[in-house]
């Protein structure tokens, strides 16, 4: 038992602080310093606050991708879930007339309708989880389907139109400050801290990492894999719903088509933040830092008058450079990163590496990781 505990502890430590996080903080500081000195008005209070407003929604969505990646899955439906949840809330606002009600009722209705939005996210997440665990469809395919389904339902429901008419109590979420910090950023921070606590010190978080490391081993260790997966996707759905509410509060409307480009950006941020797409490791802190870093780059480009498409180029270059350097330096465990997806028993992987080194043509570099 002791040896198990030791390995568990080691695994936990590794899961909490992968080697990349320090480098990531360094990168963020470097970007911040570079922008402060080269970009006029970058470090002004107004710009910092505007960045904090903008980073919240994409930061929340990146957390969703990261958490789903910890289980070696992925949740492609997150933007659809966010929009559908926001639409449920917005439609309920319209139906209940929350915007025109007296202040007391308005606040109560705001809380109730936002709660309904969160519940929608949880239900969508549960649908994802059930398709993955009961029908045994792989996560990427299941959520590819539900992404289209949820988005399709939202489009069909509103005929593709946006929904307006939100009460002031709700719009405060997208416009007000708490001690000078924009509320959306406070929401991101609270959700990130709660999720980090869940991942770091609750049994569910530990089981998620174990399941993502090796689902077979976790099953033999008595982890209820199906329930853990279901809980993970419900959690993902709920965080997506929070992102949807933040988006709705910031744009004062809910639309079925908002933020389609966020999906790929969220994957970029999650991976930049050190999340292993093959599961089992990564930190939420790294993801938040990566989101802030990219937001700083984006904001710096904006202030310099460069287009968002130049930013896209840089974003792609950063992704490939960070991944390329990371893989070349093997800062990640090569057995995981370069793992072919097949059921090769673990001890054999080591011996394979030895035989590979003996092959004269050096073909061993040619194997690639699969996502």
């Amino acid at each position, binding site marked *: 038992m002791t040896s198990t505990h030791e390995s568990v502890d080691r695994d936990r430590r590794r899961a909490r602080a992968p080697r990349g996080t320090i480098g990531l903080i360094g990168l963020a500081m470097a970007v911040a310093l570079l922008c402060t000195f080269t970009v006029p008005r970058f470090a002004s209070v107004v710009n910092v606050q505007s960045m904090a407003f903008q980073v919240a929604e994409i930061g929340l969505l990146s957390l969703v991708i990261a958490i789903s990646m910890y*289980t070696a899955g992925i949740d492609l439906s997150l933007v659809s879930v966010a929009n559908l949840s926001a639409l449920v809330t917005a439609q309920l606002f319209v139906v209940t007339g929350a915007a025109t009600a007296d202040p007391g009722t308005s606040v109560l209705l705001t809380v109730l309708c936002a709660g309904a939005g969160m519940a929608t996210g949880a239900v969508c997440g549960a649908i994802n989880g059930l398709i993955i665990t009961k029908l045994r469809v792989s*996560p990427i395919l299941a959520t590819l389907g539900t992404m289209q389904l949820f988005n399709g339902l939202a489009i*069909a429901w509103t005929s593709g139109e946006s929904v307006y008419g939100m009460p002031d109590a709700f719009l405060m979420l997208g416009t007000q400050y708490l001690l000078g910090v924009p509320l959306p950023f406070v929401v991101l921070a609270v959700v990130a801290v709660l999720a980090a606590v869940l991942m770091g010190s609750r049994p569910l978080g530990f089981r998620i990492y174990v399941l993502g490391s090796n689902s077979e081993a976790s099953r033999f260790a008595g982890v209820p894999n199906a329930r853990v997966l279901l809980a993970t996707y419900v959690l993902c759905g709920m965080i997506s719903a929070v992102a949807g509410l933040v988006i709705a509060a910031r744009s004062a409307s809910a639309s079925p088509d908002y933020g389609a480009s966020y999906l790929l950006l969220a994957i970029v941020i999650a991976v930049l933040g050190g999340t292993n797409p093959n599961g*089992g490791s990564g930190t939420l802190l790294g993801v938040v830092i990566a989101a802030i870093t990219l937001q700083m780059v984006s904001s710096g480009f904006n202030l310099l008058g460069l287009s968002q498409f130049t930013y896209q180029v840089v974003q792609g270059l950063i992704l490939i450079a960070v991944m390329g350097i990371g893989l070349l330096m093997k800062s990640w465990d090569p057995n995981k990163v370069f793992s072919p997806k097949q059921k090769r028993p673990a001890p054999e992987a080591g011996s394979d590496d030895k035989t590979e080194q003996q092959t004269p043509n050096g073909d061993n570099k040619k194997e690639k990781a699969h996502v």
Partner: protein
Amino acid sequence: MSITSPTDSPTAVRGEAVHLAWLRPSRLRGANNEGILALVIILLAVIVGTISPSFWAAGTIINLAGTSISTLLFALGVLLVLVSGGIDVSFLAIGAFAAYATVKAIVTVGLGSSSVIFPFLIAAGLGVVLGLINAAAVVGLRIPTLIATLGTQGIIRGVLITYIGSRVISDLPPTLSGLSTSYLLVAEGTTRTPLSVLFVPVAAITLLVALLLRSTVFGRGIYAVGGHAEFARRAGFPVSRIQVGVYALAGLLAGLGGMVHVILVREADPFTLVGGELDVIAAVVLGGASIFGGRGSVLGTVLGVVLISLINNSLLLLGVPGFWQRAAVGLMLLIGVSAQAWRGRRRPPTTDDPTAPGSSDSLTASQPKGDVA
């Protein structure tokens, strides 16, 4: 025509036995459920046709064929990458880049405006170059394919709009605009429905890709690499050369697809296309290709593209508002992948078939994890 994958039973050989084997249910079903997909398409057509007889007008079928040819080219590229065990999300960026850059080159410097062939050659060449960038990231730097192509997608699209041009070119050069209005045939009915002349080369390319996957060493190598890269290497396949070839070919097909798209919509718009990647991937997956590699066929891909385009076209005929299209496609995709998962579970994957669809844990369970215990 059914393209067998290497995971198919060894009895599926060419020769006289095939004639009898065709009648077996398993043959009719196809290696990747092509038969079931064809049945679904026929059923859907019969249902729609019964409710709305106007469906049977020649125009409907011609419209179906005409509107999906550029999607089909993209889908074929996606199929190659999926079969090889990767995922490509950069193909629409490549298509938009190749097509817009080609049109811009013709308009501004008159490059290759003498013949209708040249624009396609330029676009295909640009596609190959951009595909090789993908190959460099995937094979050279060994970055996971989804992440590598996410990166190149951003780079390619950004470079296109920042440095090549951001203005929509709506008056195409004469050779291309002439091609836009060249029709193979025109179905007369309540509305005139023309079939673009480009249908012929696209059909020919489809057959060539089928032939490539089915009967060349390179094509079989793609299945082998996608099935298990390590085993393929030990069996003597040049794994990285095959992967480079796959990404170059996918780039070529994407370049051509972009060019066909430009000709069909009669304008070159640098902002178009990108964003619909997952829809094309969905069509290919619906066509039976495994997202984990080693499985998939050209026939299935064609059927997948046809089915999605049929759903989109027929809902309107059925009186369902167009807003339901996306939900219907999503539901169809979920049913499709669930059926594959169910079938994969009933027939447990054998050792040489580690990536059967529906071994649902392909993404979760079967990673070798050397450092857990």
